[in-house]
């Protein structure tokens, strides 16, 4: 079975999926950023509910983002450490936008020919977006990789991508800005661990394996300016105090 985690957005979830990607058990909280408090209890609950032991888990899978940095890292650090301490379970990651796209492909709003555009809230009135289309055998194909789109430019950005179906927490948040060129999938409100487990099981493009590759996709550089790029080193503030 696949133990899947997803923490890139305000949604925090853990799921057990069968080898074919079908959902066995899941816990989801949409309540907000309490991932440190919720994630491992969720893992414990889905395992306990199925009477599953670690011998039953052959892969630990996690959504790689982009999303909110701190939550994203909690999920990825958790997945990495579980796999490390397990020793025999594999570690896999999938871009969260790809997992969402696969969920969009199965949504009733995703009529054939419509492009799949998952949207994740990037805060600061920006969204992370990517464009997919349906591939054979129920998979998805990436057409346009992660872009950071300002909310105010979202309608125009989407309009230039043709007939689309959107979904994800970014689509819910900016629902009123979405143009008439395509519906929002009502059932795809946030990325969840079940979507991650299914994406890894289906082997969608972008799935990576092993600790060297299962690392966050931030989609954005940290807010910090190297000294050399600033005028005058005297202005350099130490945000957190240096030593130990």
């Amino acid at each position, binding site marked *: 079975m696949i133990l899947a985690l997803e923490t890139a957005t305000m949604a925090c979830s853990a799921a057990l999926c069968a080898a074919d990607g079908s959902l066995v058990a899941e816990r989801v909280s949409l*309540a907000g950023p309490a991932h440190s408090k919720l994630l491992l209890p969720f893992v414990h609950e889905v395992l306990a509910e199925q009477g599953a032991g670690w011998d039953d888990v052959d892969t630990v899978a996690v959504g790689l983002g982009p999303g909110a940095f*701190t939550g994203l890292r909690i999920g990825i650090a958790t997945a990495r*450490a579980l796999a490390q301490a397990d020793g025999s379970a594999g570690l896999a990651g999938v871009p969260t936008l790809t997992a969402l796209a696969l969920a969009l492909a199965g949504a009733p709003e995703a009529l054939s020919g419509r492009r799949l555009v998952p949207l994740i809230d990037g805060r600061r009135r920006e969204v992370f977006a990517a464009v997919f289309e349906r591939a054979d055998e129920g998979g998805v194909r990436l057409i346009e990789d992660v872009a950071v789109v300002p909310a105010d430019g979202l309608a125009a950005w989407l309009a230039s991508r043709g007939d689309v179906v959107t979904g994800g927490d970014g689509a819910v948040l900016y629902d009123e800005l979405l143009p008439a060129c395509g519906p929002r999938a009502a059932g795809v409100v946030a990325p969840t661990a079940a979507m991650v487990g299914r994406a890894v099981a289906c082997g969608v493009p972008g799935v990576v394996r092993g600790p060297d590759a299962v690392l966050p996709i931030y989609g954005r550089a940290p807010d910090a300016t190297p000294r050399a790029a600033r005028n005058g080193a005297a202005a350099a503030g130490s945000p957190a105090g240096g030593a130990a």
Partner: protein
Amino acid sequence: MILAVETSCDDTSAAVVRGREVLSSIVSSQNELHAQFGGVVPEVASRRHTELVNEVVAEAMSEAGAGWDDLSAVAVTQGPGLIGALLVGLATGKSLAYRRRLPLIPVNHLQGHIAANYALGVRAPFVCLVASGGHTLLAVVEEGVRYRVAAKTMDDAAGEAFDKGARLLGLGYPGGRELDELAARGDPGFARFPRAVPRGRGFSFSGLKTALLYDLRARDEAEIEAHRADIAASYQAAIVRQLVEKTVAGAAAEGLRSVAVAGGVAANSGLRRALGEACEAEGLQLSLPPLSLCTDNAGMIGLAAGFLPALEWPDYLGLDAFASDAEAKAARPPSKRSAGRARP
């Protein structure tokens, strides 16, 4: 054996500790990474912890010759520190412990610093000067790592005073260390900084920083250039004087003959020398941990864990980190009843 993980600031560290013996302590410093920003950037630190922590854990285990089945518990820094950085270590520590069905011991970072002295065989009660970039206090350690605060800083931390002084002097990063190296070549009597140690039992460093600013303003560029080491030595001596006098006075007030130091500032060579001399003159016994145990390291977290209660598997799964001691209460682990039950 206890596996310890520490990621509260900009060092990624893991250690294996047996009782009061540090079997391995791996520290992957991010100094070079943050030097380009002139200070620790929390988001940059958190990203680096995520990349490094598992490798550092593996290295600590292998250097100690420890396998997973040799461990009796996992210890991890819960706070205080940079919240995003702490959460990477906490998620890692909790997950390692959970998968191995081990108890978890959450450790307060300051208690970790204090516990470093147990590697040297110090015995409680003792007074401990805890000085770093984020903290400056005089702790009366009553037993194990339980302490009461006898004095604390009223403004900046000592490490901040060093870093800000280094910046005023145009030195590189990390400022405290550069200042220390420069001061070693200078005359501490060159520039006059306020001699008076603040009244009462608190530390205060912001006045010294202002005095340095005015001292530099009063000199021309050529004079500063010629006497940078002397000014650095004078400034460092003023900070050190306050730390030493308060520590010695604190020991006397508490009637304790045993003195210890902890925290990154305890790596300062001027402080180590002056405190050594003062304690010798006063007949106090001084515990001066090696530099590797003064700056942030997981070895000290493992040492502290030996004095702290463990949370049994799986009661710690909902444990959260805390950025400041004030938040510590809110981050208490969930009760046994709420763990393992479905949440809305």
